[in-house]
């Protein structure tokens, strides 16, 4: 799907904003993703022109970092922590439960577009394992009841 003129306009505003900033790519990509929900591949060319970098360099940068995505996610992003502390408290069962309940694997979005499921490696909530993050909200000591509630609220939002 091609980008709307509004999206293109937004991208160009962000490009200009960080043009003179050293190390601009990190804050620039965050700004674009915060605004549009993703960093569209169509933005690579204008960025490369403005910043005097090759499209390959922009592509290499965006794809290096787990946080950046080049496709629009679902309305909500559910991240399940897969790191050791959460594993010690049963995160594997939680992963299986979520994947089965949502009918999707990691990096996929539910058919109703309500939830994108992502793995995460530590949320710094290790004293309250297992932990998940729904959008920017961390939830601790997650069990099936809590995850049901999170999914329900996400679907209704």
């Amino acid at each position, binding site marked *: 799907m091609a980008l709307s003129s509004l999206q293109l306009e937004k991208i160009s505003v962000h490009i200009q904003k960080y043009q003179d900033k*050293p*190390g*601009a*790519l*990190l*804050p620039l*990509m*965050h700004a674009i993703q915060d605004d549009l929900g993703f960093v569209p591949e169509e933005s690579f060319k204008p960025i490369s022109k403005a910043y005097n970098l090759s499209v390959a360099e922009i592509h*290499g*940068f965006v794809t*290096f*970092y*787990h*946080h*950046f995505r080049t496709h629009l996610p679902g309305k909500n992003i559910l991240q399940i922590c897969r*790191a*050791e*502390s*959460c*594993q*010690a*408290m049963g995160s594997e069962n939680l992963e299986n439960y979520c994947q089965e309940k949502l009918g999707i694997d990691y990096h996929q979005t539910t058919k109703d577009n309500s939830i994108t499921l992502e793995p*995460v*490696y*530590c*949320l*710094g*909530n*290790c*004293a*309250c*394992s297992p*932990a998940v*993050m729904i959008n*920017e*909200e*961390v*939830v*601790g*000591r997650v069990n099936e009841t809590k995850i049901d509630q999170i999914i329900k609220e996400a679907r209704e939002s």
Partner: protein
Amino acid sequence: MAYKIFIPRDSSAISLGADKVYQEILNEAKNRNIDINIVRNGSRGLFWLEPMIEVETPKGRVAYGPVTISDVASLFEIEFFLGNKHPLFLGITEDIKWLKNQERLTYARVGITDPVSILDYEKWDGFKGLKNSLKLSQENIIKEIADSGLRGRGGAAFPTGIKWKTVLDAPSEKKYIVCNADEGDSGTFSDRMIMENDPFVLIEGMIIAGLAVGADQGYIYLRSEYPHALKILNEAIDIAVDKGYLGKNILGSDFSFTLEVTRAAGAYICGEETSLLESLEGKRGMVRYKPPLPAIEGLYGKPTVVNNVISLATVPIIMDKGASFYANYGMGRSKGTLPIQLAGNLKQTGLIEKAFGISLRELLYDFGGGSATGRPIKAVQVGGPLGAFLPEEQFDTPLDYEKFTEIKAVVGHGGIVAFDDTVDMSKMARYSFEFCAIESCGKCTPCRIGSTRGMEVIDKIKEGTDQEKNVSLLRDLGDTMVNGSLCAMGGMTPFPVISALNYFPEDFGLEKTETSA
């Protein structure tokens, strides 16, 4: 007069419902027409009791926890705002055994103050270290830090004073202070807690570092998984600028320092200092060759101090109370205190700041209360995903950098993750390789390829294919990665793998004797 009530705003406390409890208490007080003043303080770090709320009484602060919204009505019934007894009553906060048995230096204010109140910070000895430092020469600030024995708390344990001296001696017009806040190790959250619960102490530490080495610009490279810390840090930086602690001519001196937060983007490898610098420069986080050290050629090729959050946040108390005050804590060459994080399968998880020298057993049982599931603790992983797994026979090892090196383990960033006896250690070993494969920057072959080959070899051992040959291959691969990788990612991934193999061969379907190194 309004009753003073404290409800934490730490993100772990919020993850257990602190914001909802706050809202409920606010509503209930309004309905009952009771005049209360709520302070959103930091967390004391007793996470099995969070959300833990406190009330100021003439005898001191008293605590209640863990409080859920369904407890709020009954708390008001017994007039908890007067400090009255309730089933959730924990007594005087300072007298709770977990807190009483700690030595909180870096964490002196955490949980007590309102994190973004600069008045609170100043009242609780804040900026005293900076004021002392402004009266000293650069050499004397660095001498104080060196004499304190402070070593890098990120995990590498390199002496902070030596690093600073190298940057001071490097001739350059421009130098940088970079705070490594890319706390990616599972089982660790002490950086997050400092940033969310006492952000000014980190800011003060960075200003002192800048003063000591002659740097006028600082960056906090913060992991993107910490949105809450981002908000609080930015709020605190704005306040510090407003009050003249950051910016031009700090406190009337001729020293100027600016500070900003840069959001990382979810790459574990960017916790490695050279990869972090690449990332800050707007590139892929590929590890650099060393030398040159970042202290000589760091950010944009300029001399750069790269320190962990806890290292920097410990600087103010050293400059306030003196090097010998700090160095009097600890054992051997591990001076001072370490914020230890108890995580995983434990009854009582949280933050404990203790002098070096405490044993794992004391931490796991006296503080941790044993496993959460009530089953025996089979293994603990200390120092994050690159740290060794340790069995019960090692639990008496004192927490000390050198003692841990002797048993081929690391203290690292002080995270301890406990597993009960249901854990399959071959699965954990395989996961270590899997994590390395996901997070490797790909620059060096042992890490990029070795991690994937490692998973395959473990699978073969578990299937029972040529076990003897494959065990020897696994050890050989570990050796190649340890000695041939460019950085700690590939160089330390074999630590958890080989320790799991050595201590728990039965989980790999092997006899104990087959595996001894």
